[in-house]
């Protein structure tokens, strides 16, 4: 693997040590310039932090915290980097974990008590019981739960914990690579195929992790369905409940009744009401998926963000009856044709259709492969179309680079262009295209996992992620309906914890920034943001990023316009090394190179609705 890493490095513009030094000094210079000239006040905090960093004298600057390779674990690191940078993933995972802890603790409380339903509710609404529940939340993954956690759930929790740690490391500006041992351990315990120290398929791990989270979400949703009274808790925080249940008139009515007192008498009825509204609601959530109100407990974001639906439409050529079969998918396998003439056909003009042509297909079922038509009760010729009824918000394309041949699994190194923007090829958009109207949405490349090397076993994975979200937090944090200012959910408590940690850090370093100042981070640009950003959110070190970008060798070419807004930056995540590169460099990396074994393997495209 080391050989391969060297290989990759050599592809990059060469830097001699002296140049490096020069750049570093340039970086410092630029930083101060930058600070004097154009640092907006809101960035000051970062810069001060950064200043502290400088004194540490790190020679390997990294804009985000890094993961170290624990021996053949680049498959894990590459997927973790990807998930961390995948839009909305961290935020959604956070809420899932929060809900999980909430429901879990309430469930164990319920089980612990044998009191009647009415009394149960009364006691839970008691403030003291709430405090225990928040304690439970803090001891996530602890063994004091009455309900044993599934291995699947533990993996999901460990994943969140890791992101929390990475966030804290970023806050601390500590750029020592972290070893995701706990997560790996949990994964290996839950699924034996990841056992041993062998290189694994990053795709397999990705699918496994997503499936894990989905399953965790499903279990949660089941629990909520099973014990609808658990949700009553949320009601004790009026703010919260109104937010979640705002669209339910029936609920609002019963809620009012409850306010009037007479708790014991009404709670029974209340529960019945919640039962029925719950059923009704599940339907309305489905239909209103695009709205923000769907982030209720048990909201399965993996299904929402990563799951698409394929449509297999088969038409019998005899009776011309059409049968459709829909199947959900998490990723789209893209076959790679080994034919050379394909490369000529993939010129720039149709590059953004390349995956559509590979995935949206029509085949004829004939000869020995006829179709058993149910209408005709016999085998007939048929045409079969494969379309995508729905493409997910985050579309994962798996290039079928590993083919099984008689001599084992072989890697196909055939070049396939990786367009930065794709036209959407869901059924609706395909139809729109026929009518010459512009399609609804496009897909923007946000992450790429490259596979480097000649085979699955000996290869290495490097992740490229679109970096540099602006100073503003990602949009999903801003209009989060789940934001609970003082509620008993995890986000508040752990963000508080995070704040305390930071405060302590800052104090010891003499960089005292008022608690209020930091706390106000949840109100950036006057927008309220979900506190979870302070728990496990991504915190890119802008200065490092900008310095790195501006300090890249081509900067010496003074004539060229200075690059690159921060959102034009990609991060090359190669285990413990995370290096910012410009889009141009990234495109160069993706472009065709003869005999290269460094090939894109998993492509992540995020949906952009115009």
């Amino acid at each position: 693997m080391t050989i391969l890493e060297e290989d990759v490095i050599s592809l990059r513009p060469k830097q001699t040590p002296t140049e490096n030094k020069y750049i570093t000094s340039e970086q410092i210079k630029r930083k101060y310039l930058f600070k004097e000239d154009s640092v907006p006040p809101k960035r000051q905090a970062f810069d001060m932090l950064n200043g502290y960093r400088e004194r540490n004298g790190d020679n390997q600057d990294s804009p985000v915290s890094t993961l170290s390779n624990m021996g053949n674990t680049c498959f894990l690191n590459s997927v973790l980097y990807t998930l961390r940078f995948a839009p909305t993933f961290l935020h959604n995972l956070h809420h899932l974990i929060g809900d999980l802890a909430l429901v879990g603790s309430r469930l164990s409380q319920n089980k612990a008590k044998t009191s009647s339903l009415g009394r149960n509710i009364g006691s839970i609404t008691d403030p003291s019981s709430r405090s225990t529940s928040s304690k439970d939340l803090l001891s996530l993954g602890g063994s004091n739960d009455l309900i044993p956690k599934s291995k699947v759930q533990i993996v999901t929790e460990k994943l969140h914990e890791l992101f929390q740690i990475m966030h804290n490391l970023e806050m601390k500006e500590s750029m020592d690579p972290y070893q995701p041992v706990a997560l790996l351990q949990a994964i290996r315990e839950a699924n034996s195929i990841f056992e041993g120290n062998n290189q694994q398929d990053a795709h397999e791990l990705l699918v496994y992790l997503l499936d894990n989270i989905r399953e965790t979400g499903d279990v949660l949703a089941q629990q909520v369905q099973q014990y609808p009274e658990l949700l009553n808790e949320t009601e004790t925080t009026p703010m919260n409940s109104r937010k979640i249940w705002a669209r339910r008139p029936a609920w609002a009515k019963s809620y009012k009744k409850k306010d009037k007192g007479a708790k014991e008498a009404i709670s029974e009825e209340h529960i019945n009401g919640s039962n029925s509204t719950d059923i009704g609601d599940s339907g309305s959530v489905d239909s209103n998926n695009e709205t923000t109100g769907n982030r209720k407990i048990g909201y399965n974001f993996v299904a929402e963000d990563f799951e698409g639906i394929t449509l297999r439409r088969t038409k019998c050529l005899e009776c011309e009856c059409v049968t459709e079969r829909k199947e959900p998918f998490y990723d789209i396998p893209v076959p790679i044709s080994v034919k050379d003439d394909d490369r000529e056909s993939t010129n720039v003009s149709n590059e953004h259709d390349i995956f559509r042509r590979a995935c949206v297909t029509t085949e004829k079922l004939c000869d020995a492969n006829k179709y058993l038509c149910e209408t005709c009760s016999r085998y007939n010729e048929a045409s079969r179309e494969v379309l995508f009824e729905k493409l997910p918000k985050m579309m994962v394309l798996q290039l079928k680079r590993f083919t099984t041949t008689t001599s084992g699994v072989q890697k196909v190194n055939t070049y396939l262009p990786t367009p930065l923007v794709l036209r959407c090829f869901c059924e609706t958009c395909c139809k729109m295209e026929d009518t010459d109207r512009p399609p609804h949405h496009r897909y923007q490349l946000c992450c790429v996992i490259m596979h480097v090397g000649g085979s699955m076993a000996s290869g290495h994975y490097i992740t490229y992620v679109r970096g540099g979200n602006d100073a503003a937090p990602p949009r999903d944090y801003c209009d989060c309906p789940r934001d609970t200012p003082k509620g008993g959910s995890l986000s508040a408590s752990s963000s508080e914890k995070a704040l305390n940690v930071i405060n302590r850090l800052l104090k010891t370093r003499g960089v005292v920034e008022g608690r209020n100042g930091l706390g106000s981070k949840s109100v950036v640009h006057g927008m309220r943001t979900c506190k979870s950003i302070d728990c496990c959110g991504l915190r890119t070190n802008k200065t490092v990023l900008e310095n790195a970008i501006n300090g890249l060798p081509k900067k010496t070419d003074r004539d060229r316009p200075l690059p690159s807004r921060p959102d034009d930056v990609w991060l090359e995540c190669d285990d413990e090394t995370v290096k910012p590169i410009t889009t141009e460099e990234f495109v160069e990396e993706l472009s065709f190179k003869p005999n290269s074994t460094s090939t894109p393997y998993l492509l992540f495209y995020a949906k952009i609705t115009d």
Partner: protein
Amino acid sequence: MANLKPGNQNTRKKVQVSMVICAAEEERHRSGVNALQLDPALDRLYSAGRDSIIRVYEHEKFLHGMEHHTDWVNDVVLCCGGRHLISASSDTTVKVWNAHKGFCMSTLRTHKDYVKALAYAKEREQVASAGLDKSIYLWDINTLTALTASNNTVTTSSLMGSKESIYSLAMNPSGSIIVSGSTEKALRLWDPRTCAKLFKLKGHADNVKALVVSKDGTQCLSGSSDGSIKLWNLGSQRNIQTIRVHSDSVWALLATENFSHAISGGRDKKVIMTDLKNISNSIIVCVEEAPILKMCFTADQQAVWVSSWDSSIRCWKLPTDKHFKEEARMSAAPVSQISGGAAIRRASVLNDKRHILTKDAQGNVAIYDVLRARKVDDLGQVNFEDEEKNRFKMVYVPNWFNIDLKTGMLTIHLGQDEVDCFSAWVSARDAGIRDTPEPDHKVNYGKLLLQALFEHWRGVETDPENRMYFSVPKHIPLILSEVGGRTLYRVLVGDTSGDTENALLNETVPNWVISNIEENCTNKFIKVQFYLQPHSSVPSHLLKQDRMKKPDRLVANDFIQCRKVAEHILEKLLGDGTASSPGCGDADSSTPSNNGYNVDQIELTCNEQVLDPSMDLRTVKHFIWKSSSDLTLFYKIINK
């Protein structure tokens, strides 16, 4: 019945034996009618059914059926002034018939896939056939009708060039031009005299399923699954008109003598007549009950016979000039009708793997007995699912045949692939056989049926020692075919004793049948592996010492009943095993053995369910154990 080449026995493909459960005379079409031909001289209508039978109606009365195909008959043409009929079928053959007497003269096995279309050049007595194998063959009818058993080779010229499956074909009477329609969505033209490829006409957006060429070969009409009808000028190779009168695929086309009007029918169930000089002028001839498959003119050309997915054929009056000038209105009723029967649309094999519950297109539910190859009960219009549930018995018998409803009749396939026809052993009593040599005699369903099917061929019915338990009616068609492929030979069960048939059968009957239907052949029983474990309540002193250590792994025939297992426990596992003769029957079972227990006191359980002593092991495994792993049974002693 000349020229039947039953195919080479050396071919690798496995041969299966099939039978069609049908009535002695199937007077009515069981399913859709794919093609129609009229003999004006005798006023005979020939209809090619999806039930594999070509039926002949004289003066609209059923005359006789022409049965020899084994799959859908897709097209027929009447030639030589009505003396001969050529038919094309999905059994991949083209057959030549004596139309007057209704027998098959020869079978052409040149095509490799379903033969979908025929075209006839009257002046040259030439027929072309085409199908899903993309090839078109030209046949000289005079040569075909002269074929005999000894002179059975025929040369054919083929028209090459089609890149996809051909669904329609047309030729003009002088045989100067031939047109094919295919999934290529284009028409291809050849000159049949030279077999030269001429050109290709593009314009349709989907499969082309209907074609007509004008007499002089200058114009052509094409009907496509894109819903349009196109009129082409073949001289200029151009599309002159595009007629869009149908709301769905066009499947059938006719043109009047002078190519002045087009009559079209299709998936939208409508027959529409369009004036080709003014295509906005069109009249709905009729609206059928099912998608239209074919039309043919009556002798006076004033009406059309229309066939559809429905088995009935109806005659509808065509509009005249008066109708086109809107001076008269179309009648909403057909001139006449030849009623069809109902096709079997659903079939479910009951648990006993002997009876089949069916439901036909008219909603009638019936029960068939596979072993006797006949319908045993008509239940009328009852709920199929309820009936299926009511007839459920907790008995498991392995599958031993496949069913096929493509012809609208029950076709039973016996083979040795995924479903081994010899896998079902049942006790003679359960099979309903009285006077069995011994009470526990086992019979094999597949063997019984094969014996019955080949009984006349083998001539065993005269032998009183090897008496038949069942026999099938003599009119039942017996079909030998390659698995999932071509038909090798079709013969009626009653005809198998004939000399020619006997000889042909000797060539075609596969070895696996011959070696297994002899009465004295060795029986290969299906085995079940299982464990026997004592329940914790069984006093250990009763058990032999070594039984304590590990469970007994046993192997038994799958039809062994729990009572037998209990006997085994009593004799071998409890006490010192000095019980009387092993394998004792019912008579012995109640006699107490030396440790004071009898069979009735042994209770067997599986998955905590108590097993009935008469239940057999395969039923336990299938319905109670519900797993493919080895069965585990627990036993305990109960006091009665």
